[in-house]
């Protein structure tokens, strides 16, 4: 006799598919926020399942800091082609050139916070009423408070103290002109769940997640990749290390870890023994205790 209960990965998958279909049913013009990282790749994979055999009915939107890993961009373009979906790019460089934002100054300058303006501008100019993200509640304490359907006012702001309660599976995406929603179908997944699922489904991911030899510099307790954007500080030296990335973001602030995990099996093993959170190597989150909360309130991913 067959069993009539789901294992936890199937249940998470079913929940995510339900949310993606609900987005499609409740909104006019939704997009998937696509960074080329594993979480947005996972969301895209789940969307493919949710609408099979039809095409994914959402465009992918990439907020491009201009500081990319070339691997990520190639991966993105290949995927867009394979799925036959539209790609929308919001460019931080353009926002800088147009004077919408100014480049940060100083030693630890990044374009991380600048993405907020580019993101909100792209949402407005493309008349997007729901942006689907790969945010997970286990990532960070402000994200632990997120709803599946998260309301943004007409300034794109999040008000964590006044969120709509979400009961059972009933999602309320009602909004007024100018407001929009963020939807988080993989809210309940942990890093471990993501990797177990990627392995189970054999989802292709950028090679950056697998251990590889790379020129890096040791900074803020992690290995920052050498790129055209990296300025060496005094006392820093370029080394060749076998590393991999646990998260992918802006190349100037994404630190790698030393690792020999060059297959999905090895990554799953490594992650299950991991003693540090994955965002521990992201200097964007290290700025202060409330770095994520502050950015999220303004409209960050």
């Amino acid at each position: 006799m067959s069993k009539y209960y789901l294992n936890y990965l199937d249940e998470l998958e079913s929940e995510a598919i339900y949310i993606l279909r609900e987005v499609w049913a409740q909104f006019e013009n939704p997009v998937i926020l696509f960074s080329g990282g594993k979480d947005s790749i996972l969301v895209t994979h789940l969307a493919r399942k949710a609408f099979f055999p039809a095409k994914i009915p959402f465009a992918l939107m990439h907020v491009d800091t201009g500081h990319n890993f070339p691997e990520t961009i190639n991966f993105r373009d290949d995927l867009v082609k394979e799925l036959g979906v539209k790609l929308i790019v919001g460019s931080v460089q353009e926002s800088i050139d147009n004077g919408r934002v100014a480049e940060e100054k100083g030693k630890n300058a990044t374009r991380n916070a600048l993405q907020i303006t580019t993101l909100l501008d792209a949402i407005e100019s493309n008349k997007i009423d729901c942006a689907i993200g790969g945010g997970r509640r286990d990532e960070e304490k402000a994200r632990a408070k997120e709803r599946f359907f998260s309301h943004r006012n007409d300034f794109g702001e999040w008000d964590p103290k006044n969120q709509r309660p979400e009961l059972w599976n009933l999602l309320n995406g009602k909004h007024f002109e100018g407001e929009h929603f963020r939807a988080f179908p993989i809210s309940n997944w942990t890093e471990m769940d993501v990797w177990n699922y990627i392995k189970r489904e054999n989802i292709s991911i950028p090679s950056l997640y697998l251990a590889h030899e790379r020129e890096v510099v040791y900074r803020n307790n992690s290995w920052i990749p050498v790129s055209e954007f990296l300025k060496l500080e005094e006392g820093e030296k370029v080394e060749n290390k076998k590393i991999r990335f646990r998260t992918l973001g802006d190349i100037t602030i994404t630190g790698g870890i030393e690792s020999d995990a060059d297959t999905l099996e090895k990554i799953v093993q490594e992650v299950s023994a991991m003693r540090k959170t994955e965002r521990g190597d992201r200097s964007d989150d290290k700025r202060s205790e409330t770095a994520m909360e502050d950015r999220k309130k303004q409209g960050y991913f």
Partner: protein
Amino acid sequence: MEIDNNQLLRFTTAGSVDDGKSTLIGRLLYDSKSIFEDQLESVSKTSAKKGHNGVDLALFTDGLKDEREQGITIDVAYRYFTTPKRKFIIADTPGHIQYTRNMVTGASTANAAVILIDARHGVIEQTKRHSFIASLLNIPHLIVCINKMDLVDFSEEVYSKIVGQFEEFSSKLLMKDVRFIPISALLGDNVVNRSESMEWYQNGTLLSTLENLHISSDINKIDARFPVQTVLRPQSEENRDYRGYAGRIASGIYRVGDEITILPSGFTSKIKSINAGDQEVEEAYAPMSIAMTLEDDIDISRGDMIVKKNNQPGLEQEFDVMLCWLNNDPAQARGKYTIVHSSNEQRAIIKNIVYKININTFERNTEDKKIEMNDIARITIRTNRPLMLDPYRENRNTGGLILIDEGTNETVAAGMVV
């Protein structure tokens, strides 16, 4: 790790900081080795800054800036941990502020509720309130943790007295499965590791209880209900005739060849195929997300429900619900709201307030008709079109509904069909 049969268990924790709720969650995470080094380091630093001896486990559940500053929880926070047996999702709900609203939210999807009682104080009003909500929301399993046993000399007598108090008042509530565990969240007794100070307690620790609860019957597998979320119509040449009804099975089991009825139209057909993602399957069950095709071409859209011919929900336009009010603006007598039930959305009017419930005494009040934030009342609703309803007690997914204020778009109430 063998993950094929590992299930997901969602539980909610009720209690306040004073009961040691945050410490308990911190203890569960810490002893189940779900805390990472950088989290531990940051909490150790903060503990030292605050002058604590050792690590203050409660700090692991710290959330937003305001919450840390005020030492309270404002909103439901979700936490995750995994053991070799199960994956767990904790809906950590605040004890004091807006307790009803938040606990109802956390409880709506929970398999189990963990209710905390301070061993020094025994059953208090708050315990009754939390138990009432757990029963109202029909949470299948209730685990009552009698905490701070270290402060009452690990006394079996104190424990038994509190169990007695709980049994006394809870006999008036509808509950299926209640268990009691004496614990000390602070010292870790009977949370993950067995207590050495309470030899008299022979049952499982909190974690082993959570790991072994029978939850595969928590979802109704008898009454087949499939609310249609959306219709899939591929544009490609090879799938031109495909018309898939997509949704998440709310309850029951569907098989290819089943004779089905579409509600509210009443048309009948047979299931031709079932897709789970890109795989074709012979049968599917709740809570799977699927797409099905039918033998006949029938006009079906979002909001319709596909059920079995011989087992149908009620088709009702006027019905009673237990309502929990979730918004700062009070309910308007004869007010009009948008009602959302499964994938169906209609308009509703609050026709009558039958009674309000005092959730501390469980008494009914038929005089007071003002419904405000956190109030629970039995009301009569009338809708513009019939809804496909089951009693909430029999089916949480097709017996639960929400009301939305048409002026603000906010979710203002949760309702459970009586």
